[in-house]
């Protein structure tokens, strides 16, 4: 048996297989004439493992044989090869979360009454898992439903110090006027201080502008 050659074959086989190989499988790779016995194979594997000292990989013996695997101390960095696409929360999730934020403490039934539809248990579960909401008590009615409230993590996530930094509901009504993508044509600068009347004005302005543009063309 040529040790160096055996080591080359063993290393190549382990890495080509990308899985654990048993001593028997490794030994099958060799012709009878230069087939290493198990002790020799173990010796070669030991040398191979030692040669991985200080590298990104290591040799490991598991129940199903020997395998080469990525070292733990770089595994996390290597895991970035498989970035997961960040999922998105559904409309319903956002609504439930916002209701809890604004109307806490309240029960699921109360959320349902505000939204007018049943709340999917998974939605609440997700928010719990995210540690954005918590059970702050129980309402003393039959069934003792949980009262839900937001957490400090919730505030931290949105960069809020206190809950009352959220704008009051009255200001929310004009939110769409503050979001250029939602409604406004271009002039974000049009000072709108809220109210549906103002919104009506803007639509007219927009129409007028379009007319002007049309006239220019003609």
């Amino acid at each position, binding site marked *: 048996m040529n040790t160096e050659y055996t080591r080359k074959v063993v290393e190549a086989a382990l*890495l*080509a297989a*990308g*899985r654990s190989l048993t001593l028997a499988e490794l030994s099958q790779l060799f012709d009878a004439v230069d087939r290493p016995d198990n002790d020799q194979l173990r010796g070669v594997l030991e040398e191979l493992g030692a040669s991985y000292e200080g590298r990104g990989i290591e040799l490991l013996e598991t129940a199903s044989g020997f*395998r*080469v*695997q*990525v070292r*733990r101390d770089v*595994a*996390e960095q*290597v*895991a970035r090869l498989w*970035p*997961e696409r*960040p*999922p*998105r*929360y559904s409309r319903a999730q*956002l609504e439930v*979360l*916002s*209701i809890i934020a604004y*109307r*806490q*403490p309240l029960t699921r039934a109360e959320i349902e*009454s*505000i*939204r*007018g539809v049943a709340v999917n248990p998974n939605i609440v579960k997700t928010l719990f898992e995210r540690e954005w909401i*918590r*059970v*702050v*008590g*129980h*309402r*003393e009615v*039959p069934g*003792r439903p949980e*009262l839900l*409230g*937001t957490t*400090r993590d919730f*505030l931290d*996530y*949105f960069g*809020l*110090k*206190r*809950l*009352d930094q*959220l704008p009051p*509901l*009255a200001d*929310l*009504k004009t*939110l*769409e006027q503050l*979001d250029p993508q*939602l409604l406004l044509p271009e002039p974000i600068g049009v000072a709108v201080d809220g109210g549906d009347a103002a919104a009506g004005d803007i639509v007219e302005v927009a129409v007028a502008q379009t007319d002007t543009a049309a006239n220019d063309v003609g």
Partner: protein
Amino acid sequence: MSMEMQGEGAVQVEMPFAMVLGEPLTEMPRDLYIPPQAMEVFLDAFEGPLDLLLYLIRRQNLNILDIPIAEITRQYTQYIDVMTEMQLDLAGEYLVMAATLAEIKSRMLLPRATAPGEGLEDDPRAELVRRLQEYERFKQAAQRLDDLPRLERDTWVASAEMGERRVVRVLPDITLKELLIAFRDVALRAEMFAHHHIHREPLSVRARMSDILSTLHPETFTEFTRLFLPEEGRMGVAVTFVAVLELLREGLLEIAQVEAYAPIHVRAVDPSRSRVIEGSATEVEDTDARLLEQPALEEQDDEEPLE
């Protein structure tokens, strides 16, 4: 054409063409007689008329640029005749080539202008020679391509296992704006359809209600005054007081005073007074126990804005 090819003589490729009656057919027959069983295999071995012509030329160590067209045409047509006689399914291209060769042969017989420096262009063989060379280049290129070390045969991409791959779960991102828009929409809908109006309560009271509730335990009373943090100032105290009143109104809190001027105590409404299924009761206690750890954090939280 190449020394290598010429040296090999008639051998087309090194591997056996096929097995004929159990015998590997490694060489092309040297004469025109081909055992009938081998004829089909023989035909299959050629990649068309150009390939067959090249074989005939190579077999005689001839230079591709100086093909004795009469002789090659004779041999070629003999092969074609044999194939036709055997009623083998002969590709039409073979017959076209036979015609082409015949045409070249007849043109070769015609007298040609042989002025020095020209005339070679007019060689009737020129086009055939070009095609033969062109085909031979790719025949050679195919062989060289086949010789390149390739995946699955000569090499494999090395891979190692990741061990237990830590799942890095990416959580969805929300902007505050998305959240606000969501609530705005809900609120608008609720105003339109719901029987009750959404009160404009200061959020600080709502938040304080959650906080107070989570500090209280149904089994033990908490001293009323401990709900207040003097460092919050008058506004903080007022918010807490309104929150306590609101909790009281919603029946979430009970207040007890043993006698006049004695300390006031509050506690969450006692669950034992409600009919509760046992299983869920233990669950509730666990949750409450966990929640008891929250107030300290929340108090710190409240201090921050005042600094």
